[in-house]
């Protein structure tokens, strides 16, 4: 019996020829990413060394990447002090893959990792952020871990006691209608298999629809795989992946895509056909509470958010700008846009997307996680409703337990910003 992509990667990284679901392995980590919560990782890391008589040194500073994105620029003195502590730690440990609060190389961790070519097919990537699953889009095995787990990785360079997860095969066929895409597909999948449908398992995406999809769309699929409970979401690397890594991310080293064996043993198969898929909306307060847009049209919204590690990329801003150009955001509705990285911000500026968005009434924020997790830059008022291209709609997520969050694609968000109510982008934003 053959192996899935995740099994092959885990076998290689653990020095084994074959692994099976349930086996316990200790794979070597290729890339370890943290954001502001590195402050806690540092704390735990120093605790590990306490009393050992050893000098705390990370196992390999070249394999650690630190990116500030969750609260940038700092929203409080506490955050600023944490960021200061992390800066000093990076300098002391020689961690030079460090993306500070900067307009030239800053951004959201899950955009910076692919954009700067840190992620390669076949790698084991861990991050102290649940959406680390994003990097499966480049054919890596990428998963979120907690801060203490990361402190252990910084110490030993391996993941301790990992059980090999089973893999669910997702086969996607058909062509999307205009203004329907990767976000609608992943919301539909989560609605179908539920928030626990892939718990402790890996989603592996296949089919002609995924093969035709750009890396930016694949990142959306992998990013939100965790919302179905998945450990990881993998799109096996292909020519499109290599093309992205060479041309966009500037990677020059040899790359080795990992394909599943033809006789790989999957936990189950989930098939989706997208020809007739309508725009999808995740309704409050769980990501698997997914409805076709026709069921929630005309829901009034006070805040529209376009951005985040899920949908703040250049093509997301392009589609939003194309819908909003020459039109106005509805009175009583505010549109907040967070480009996912400085590079995207600059390109969106050069191509005129930001001008079109601003002229429509949008507020353009600096790259970062912004209001997605309810820390700053766009909390909801009591009884207010947001429509967002972000990834979670849990109660309290956008800073207020008395607010509602609906999730959608950038096209749906833009069309709805024009009308002030949830609007099908296929109807051109006419109310």
């Amino acid at each position, binding site marked *: 019996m053959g192996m899935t992509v995740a099994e092959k990667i885990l076998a290689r990284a653990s020095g084994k020829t074959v692994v099976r679901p349930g086996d316990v392995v200790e794979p070597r980590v290729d890339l370890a990413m943290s954001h502001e919560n590195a402050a806690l990782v540092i704390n735990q890391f120093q605790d590990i060394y306490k009393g050992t008589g*050893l000098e705390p040194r990370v196992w390999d500073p070249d394999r650690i990447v630190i990116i500030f994105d969750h609260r940038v620029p700092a929203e409080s003195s506490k*955050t600023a002090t944490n960021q200061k502590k992390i800066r000093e730690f990076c300098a002391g440990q020689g961690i030079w893959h460090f993306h500070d609060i900067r307009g030239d190389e800053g951004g959201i961790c899950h955009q910076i990792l692919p954009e700067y070519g840190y992620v390669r097919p076949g790698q084991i990537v861990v991050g102290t952020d649940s959406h680390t699953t994003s990097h499966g889009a480049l054919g890596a095995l990428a998963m979120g871990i907690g801060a203490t787990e990361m402190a252990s990785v910084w110490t030993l360079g391996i993941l*301790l006691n990992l059980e090999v997860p089973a893999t669910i095969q997702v086969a996607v066929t058909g062509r999307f209608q205009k203004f329907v895409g990767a976000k609608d597909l992943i919301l539909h999948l989560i609605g179908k298999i539920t928030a626990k449908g892939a718990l402790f398992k890996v989603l592996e995406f296949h089919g002609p629809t995924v093969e035709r999809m750009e890396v930016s769309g694949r990142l959306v699929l992998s990013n939100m795989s965790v919302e179905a409970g998945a450990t990881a979401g993998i799109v096996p690397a292909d020519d499109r992946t290599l093309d992205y890594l060479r041309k966009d991310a500037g990677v020059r080293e040899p790359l080795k895509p990992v394909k599943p064996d033809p006789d790989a043993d999957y936990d189950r198969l989930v098939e989706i056909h997208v020809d007739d898929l309508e725009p999808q909306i995740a309704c409050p307060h769980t990501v698997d509470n997914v409805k076709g847009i026709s069921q929630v049209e005309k829901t009034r919204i006070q805040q529209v958010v376009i951005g985040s590690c899920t949908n703040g990329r250049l093509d997301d801003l392009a589609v939003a700008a194309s819908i909003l150009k020459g039109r106005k955001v509805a009175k009583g509705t505010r549109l907040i846009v967070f480009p996912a990285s400085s590079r995207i911000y600059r390109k969106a500026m050069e191509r005129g997307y930001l001008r079109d968005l601003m002229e429509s009434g949008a507020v353009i924020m600096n790259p970062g996680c912004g209001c997605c997790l309810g820390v700053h830059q766009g909390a909801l008022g009591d009884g207010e409703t947001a429509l967002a291209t972000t990834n979670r709609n849990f109660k309290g997520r956008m800073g207020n337990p008395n607010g509602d969050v609906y999730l959608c694609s950038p096209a749906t968000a833009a069309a709805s910003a024009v009308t002030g109510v949830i609007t099908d982008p296929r109807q051109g934003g006419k109310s």
Partner: protein
Amino acid sequence: MSCVVYKLGDDVSTDTLYPGRFMATVLPSETVQYAFADDGEFNARLQKKEIAPGSVITAGSNFGCGSSREQAASCLAGYGLVILAKSFARIFLQNAVNLGLKTLAVPDLEAEPGDELEIRNDRVINRRTGKEFPVLPLPPARQAVVDAGGLIPYTKKRLLEKAVSSH
């Protein structure tokens, strides 16, 4: 004996356990104050120490879904709470094991607030109804971390073994 103090449903998210706006607070000694911060009544009961260590929260499936934020586990561990759920989200479960928060998967559990439970390694007994419910065992790999008292002592042990073997 452990008393059920709160009964929750499916998909309790890390935003319920520890809202994102308090994420700049990281030290376990400080996270406790924000446990269930958006649930004013339960947060107040915890902060006023009305809930004894060893008390039980019961929940449905996928407890702790969402963020990898470790505060969601450390804030509960700080009160000595025990979580009995049908199932747990992966990162939360790992964080709980790593930090010594007691979590048991008891898929068939029937218990109401106020019930006294006897928690054994392999089963939970509801003293009010007399019914017994099997506990799903932790995978042996995770049990080793629990037995070591958490991931920090476990990694410390591995680090020292490595230091010895490389000399």
